[in-house]
């Protein structure tokens, strides 16, 4: 779909549409600039045209050069493998824009983020509580992502207002931020009547480290290392999305060999995480043998990673322009041998789980997230696929996956069992893909080209094991980063969890939580 088709599509639904400019910035990215007054209606129209949730809504501060803020809203057209980014200027003396939250729920968290970080008010958003800067710690009026912000200014502190359910016999169970296990910090507040949960209020931000601000002013190679530390169990997906954005800006296309290697490492990351989660689900129903079994498989994959790349978590493997570590003949053999036993053990693990009646009883119909809810919330990635939403960037965007006839895994029921089944199917598909890509590697080809950095902006994306990881980057002429917007799939999927647990009992919460296994640090940034 080129620009004109997109514009015709919008005009069919919203006749008053008028673009200030519309450009095909890259083969898979269209940028449309328009006036603030029609921003809302255009977004609503695009939402219908592509039947896409808002992939990301974010702002940037251009007050120094142009006395304005810019708000961007990105939609994805999966069928055509294309992103459309709508942007509008917000004058600095009237810092507000029309909220979309009442019409598109998936945008509401992004709007709160823009309000909290830039002080741009989404007019009409019913919930403007802050997500990451806690009222008990950081006074109101601090907008960290504004360019003139450097340090938190002192001021009045407040308490956070939780949503409360009131009524006879309703009680609250607060949990966190420090949990019983070895896990990240988050606060969960259950409202319970009798046994079933009737509301789950989540509060995050405990791992907020100001990552997006830290990116600003860094060179891309320096920033790549930071990208690997955003979410520790998805290092490779983050560094991949980051480097793709830089590569798009610089107009570089990586070699085929590098594309295969990236796919191999991305799938290895998916495999060790999926098997870890499968083990986690077993341990959360008190079934410790398979969980120990799964942790041995995970360790085998981590050690394989270590042998192939000298990093258990695939850090410093990816770079802008390709990959740093290739696979020679010996390593390929090592990979094949390890995979034989890994696959055998995985089949055994699944056998143990599927043949246990009490385990299946616990996971079946537990924590169901229905498709309609999932679509309304804009849930993405593995969780969406388990609820029957066919969304996987590998299926729609990537060349090497198409070549390997990638098969997307989806389930309809949206419960813990569905998420387990999708993980099992994806693990198997990933191991097939890794072996297929390994067979296609040619040793002669270059795996790393050194790109010449340019200024510009682009969206980088990768389907990590949880779901899509998006990096919007803006660089100046010297290649220094001016703005970096990161979306980890956890950010959107946390709200899926608060709906999935409704009607379940609190003892099933750890199981539901593990079946989502979202990243605290990826969501909090």
């Amino acid at each position, binding site marked *: 779909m080129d620009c004109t088709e997109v514009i015709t599509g919008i005009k069919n639904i919203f006749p008053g549409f008028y673009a200030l400019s519309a450009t095909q910035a890259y083969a898979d990215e269209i940028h449309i600039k328009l006036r603030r007054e029609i921003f809302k209606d255009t977004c609503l129209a695009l939402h219908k045209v592509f039947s896409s949730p808002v992939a990301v809504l974010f702002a940037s501060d251009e007050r120094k050069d142009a006395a304005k803020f810019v708000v961007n809203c990105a939609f994805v057209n999966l069928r055509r493998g294309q992103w459309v980014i709508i942007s509008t200027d917000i004058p600095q003396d009237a810092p507000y824009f029309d909220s979309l939250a009442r019409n598109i729920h998936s945008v509401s968290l992004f709007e709160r983020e823009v309000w909290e970080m830039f002080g741009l008010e989404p007019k009409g958003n019913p919930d403007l509580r802050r997500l990451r800067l806690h009222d008990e*710690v950081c006074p109101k009026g601090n907008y960290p992502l504004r360019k003139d912000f450097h340090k938190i200014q002192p001021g009045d502190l407040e308490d956070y207002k939780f949503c409360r359910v009131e009524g006879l016999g309703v009680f609250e169970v607060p949990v966190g931020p*420090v949990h019983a296990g070895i896990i990240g*910090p988050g606060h969960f507040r259950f409202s319970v009547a009798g046994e079933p949960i009737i509301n789950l209020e989540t509060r995050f931000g405990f*791992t907020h480290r*100001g990552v997006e601000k830290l990116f600003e002013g860094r060179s891309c190679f320096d920033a790549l290392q930071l990208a690997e530390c955003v979410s520790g169990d998805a290092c490779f997906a983050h560094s991949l999305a980051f480097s793709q954005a830089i590569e798009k800006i610089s107009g570089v296309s990586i070699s085929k060999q590098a594309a295969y290697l990236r796919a191999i490492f991305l799938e290895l990351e998916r495999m060790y995480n999926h098997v870890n989660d499968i083990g986690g689900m077993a341990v959360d129903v008190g079934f410790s043998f398979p969980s120990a079994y799964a942790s041995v498989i995970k360790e085998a994959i981590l050690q394989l990673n270590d042998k192939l790349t000298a990093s258990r978590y695939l850090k410093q493997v990816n770079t802008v322009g390709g990959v740093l570590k290739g696979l020679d003949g010996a390593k390929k053999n090592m990979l094949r041998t390890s995979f034989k036993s890994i696959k055998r*053990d995985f089949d055994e693990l699944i056998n143990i789980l599927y043949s246990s009646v009490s385990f299946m009883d616990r996971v079946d119909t537990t924590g169901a997230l229905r498709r309609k809810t999932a679509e309304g919330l804009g849930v993405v990635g593995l969780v969406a696929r388990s609820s029957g939403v066919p969304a996987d960037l590998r299926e729609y965007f990537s060349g090497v996956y198409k070549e390997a006839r990638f098969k997307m895994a989806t389930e309809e029921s949206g419960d813990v069992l569905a998420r387990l089944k999708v993980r099992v199917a994806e693990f198997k598909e990933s191991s097939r893909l890794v072996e297929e890509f390994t067979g296609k590697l040619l040793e002669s080809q270059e795996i790393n080209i050194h790109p010449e950095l340019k200024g510009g902006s682009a969206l980088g994306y990768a389907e990590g094991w949880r779901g899509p990881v998006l990096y919007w980057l803006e660089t100046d002429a010297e290649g220094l980063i001016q703005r970096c917007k990161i979306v980890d799939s956890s950010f959107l999927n946390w709200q899926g969890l608060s709906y999935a647990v409704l009607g379940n009992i609190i003892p099933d919460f750890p199981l539901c939580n593990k079946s989502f296994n979202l990243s605290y640090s990826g969501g909090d940034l």
Partner: protein
Amino acid sequence: MLLMLKNRILKGLFSRHIEPDLTAKIDRLGLPAGQAGLELKSLIQNKFRRSLHIRHLDSGSCGACESEIISANNPIYDLQRFGVNFTASPRHADALLVTGPVSKNMLIALKKTYDSMPEPKFVITCGDCALDGGPFKGSYYIEGAVKNILPVALHIPGCPPSPLAIIQALLMLLREKE
């Protein structure tokens, strides 16, 4: 019972498709006589009456350190065989294991967790972030360096430290404490 424990330490549980000399490596841990695993165990037995209980606290880490701490508890490294246990409550803990660069939002929780631990207690930091903020140094929302907030007895370096490094560091600490 003692014989069983001894066998487990000497043999290790798993040998399949895992680095064959890994178990030996864990037991050796840089000592000449191949006694390190046993030494760690005996230290814990003498010093902590067979059980060193650790409470883990994530102060804003990316999750990789957590993953490696969990790995140190898997059947291959099996930290528990040395008498080291991870506890669910700070009230049962001898040591606090802190990961992450201390986000401002976690400062209160960090202090409260430490305060609710019984004496004697000590703090271990794990990963580069916990030492000085690591890659997040200079951020507006980082308190940085756990050692400026709590007295730290030991730091385990790495990003993330491998399970082997975690076990090794614990051993060193206990040796010093003697």
